[in-house]
């Protein structure tokens, strides 16, 4: 796992730092080059002026006409210096005062640039050239203090670095913003995926950048395929149930036939066998139809669906004049498949309807887990029966039809959802109490 944000941020930081460093070096070098070039040409002029003011007397001694020279050479440590070498003779500018320039004589016609440390430990640029004047070889060195240029350069470099750092920070901030902004659709998708899991969405349809739209399309396609498969297998199982139940119905009606009524042994076998077939078929087919865990196609809005189940049960058990007490938050939505939940609650509530005197209480609580309680005011079951009930297909009362199979199917559904099913005595109504615990958001853990 790595963060796009950090990757992009560090990439940008490194590349920008390298770019600024190169720029810093190039600009510094250019500025130094330009400044020295400018000084160099001035030194050249000074050198020529000195050559012009130089004269040799009859004793072949070199004399400089100081009036022709710039006054700056007279002021001590002015930063502008010269030194003339001819034969044994050396002439130094007054500005050098007691200092000297370490210059060698050059063969005539040669010129060179030197960097020396001059008076007061200041850096000097020295232009040395040699001429032939009145048949005397003359080497003239002219120097200028570079320290003000160094100062200006350092100043420039500081300012440059400072603004570079500011620009760098600004760019990184802008980049962070851009990255966040481009990642925002991803956050939206993450939320959408959670909503999908809860069953609030059927597919991902928020606008996304073109780079991730193939991914979203793929997710949507997979959701579609899963839904279609579930639907298809449910439909074909429904058809299978239909196809099997029709002949089974005909068979079970056969026991009313006059000819068979006369053979009680055959009638009994026919009745038991068709009933066993019906029950096993019911059980297996219902288990096969379960959606189980995973994003639900249709979520289960508890209050509404339980109310419609109650309408059905009231119609089915009209003679009992049932009294239902619902304690379910209006907005309780379970992220479980609607059909599975209807099957689960339908079976358990119908069981309660069979046993109750009149009152049935349904409670749904959404905390960390989903807790569903279905209580009745019937006779309830004793300790032994409660234990036996948890076994597969156990029937407590063989005369009340379908009792065992309903609870068994409910058990299958709860197993699919990794939930818990407990039987006990109702504290509120005194009868049977079924408590179901289903882990909330099971698919994300």
């Amino acid at each position, binding site marked *: 796992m790595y963060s796009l944000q950090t990757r992009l941020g560090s990439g940008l930081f490194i590349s920008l730092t390298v770019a600024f460093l190169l720029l810093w070096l190039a600009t510094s070098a250019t500025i130094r080059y330009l400044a020295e070039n400018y000084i160099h040409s001035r030194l050249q002029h000074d050198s020529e002026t000195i050559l012009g003011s130089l004269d040799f007397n009859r004793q072949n001694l070199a004399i400089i006409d100081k009036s022709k020279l710039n006054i700056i050479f007279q002021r001590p440590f002015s930063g502008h210096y010269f030194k003339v070498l001819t034969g044994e003779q050396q002439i130094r500018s007054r500005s050098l005062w007691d200092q000297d320039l370490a210059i060698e004589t050059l063969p005539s016609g040669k010129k060179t640039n030197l960097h020396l440390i001059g008076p007061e430990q200041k850096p000097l640029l020295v232009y040395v050239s040699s001429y032939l004047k009145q048949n005397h070889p003359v080497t003239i060195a002219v120097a200028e203090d570079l320290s003000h240029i160094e100062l200006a350069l350092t100043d420039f470099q500081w300012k440059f670095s400072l603004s570079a750092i500011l620009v760098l920070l600004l760019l990184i901030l802008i980049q962070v913003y851009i990255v966040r902004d481009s990642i925002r659709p991803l956050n939206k998708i993450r939320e959408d995926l959670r909503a999908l899991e809860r069953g609030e969405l059927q597919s991902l349809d928020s606008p996304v950048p073109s780079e991730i739209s193939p991914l979203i399309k793929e997710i949507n396609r997979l959701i579609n395929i899963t839904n279609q498969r579930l639907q298809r297998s449910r439909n074909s199982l*429904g058809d299978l*149930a*239909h196809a*099997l*139940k*029709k*002949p*089974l*119905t*005909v*068979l*079970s*009606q*056969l026991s*009313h*036939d006059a000819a068979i009524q006369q053979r009680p042994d055959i009638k009994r076998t026919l009745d038991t066998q*068709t009933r066993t077939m*019906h029950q096993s078929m019911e059980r297996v087919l*219902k288990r096969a*139809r379960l959606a189980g865990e995973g994003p639900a196609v249709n979520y289960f809005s508890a209050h509404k*669906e339980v109310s*419609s*189940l109650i*309408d*059905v049960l009231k*119609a*089915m058990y*009209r*003679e009992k004049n049932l009294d239902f007490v619902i304690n379910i938050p209006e907005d309780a939505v379970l992220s479980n498949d*609607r*059909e599975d939940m*209807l*099957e689960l*609650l*339908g*079976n358990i509530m119908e069981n309660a309807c069979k046993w109750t005197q009149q009152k049935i209480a349904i409670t749904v609580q959404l905390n960390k887990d989903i807790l569903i309680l279905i209580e009745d005011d019937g006779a309830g079951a004793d300790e032994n029966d409660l234990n036996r009930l948890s076994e597969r297909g156990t029937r407590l009362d063989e005369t009340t039809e379908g009792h065992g199979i309903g609870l068994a199917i409910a058990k299958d559904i709860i197993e699919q959802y990794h939930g818990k099913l407990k039987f006990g005595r109702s504290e509120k109504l005194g009868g049977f109490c079924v408590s179901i615990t289903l882990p909330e958001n099971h698919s994300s853990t």
Partner: protein
Amino acid sequence: MRLLLVEDDNNLIRTLRRDLQKAGYAVDVADNGVDAEYMGDEKIYDIVVLDLGLPERSGLEVLRSWRKSGNTLPVVILTARDSWQERVDGFKAGADDYVGKPFHIEELIARLSALLHRSHQKPAGSIELNRIILNEEQQSVTIRDGETHSLTGTEFRLLRYLILNDGKILSKSRLTEHIYDFDSDKDSNVIEAYIKRLRKILGKECIETRRGQGYIFKAEF
């Protein structure tokens, strides 16, 4: 009582028709959704047994379109599709009761008769009017003085129809429509003969003749 059986399986039609007729219903059969919808709107049926998996038009669609057009015919869905979701959908579409296949014929008959009582605002169980008790299971009538008379099929159908619609004027043609199915020979003059026989059992005052209009079963006299 005239019953519309909507079912597409021939074997089941045969046994169901036999059992329902034995239980005192005049039975007509529709074996596809389109016929069923048309026949259900005829206003001659008292109750419908409706399968959901039908050719041409599904049972749920048929039921929905009846209810949409204001047809309040009592409907019992009889289907192999009996998941709770399908039950909920069935009741939402306007079913009055739901029986899953395979089923016991006794259960279906009990539910049909309970539904008929309900739709005629009569209590569940045997109907007691004044001094007459109609036993639907035995197809007999008990007068309060203790005498029990068993009834023939047609007598039972006629008396049940009269009792369930007590206090209403019932024309001869209406009575004919509701106690005979399509295949029977219908002769409205036969009705007079049956009324006469019922009067003989129950007493003359029980069924009043309104000349030119029909008969009324008197709840109190």
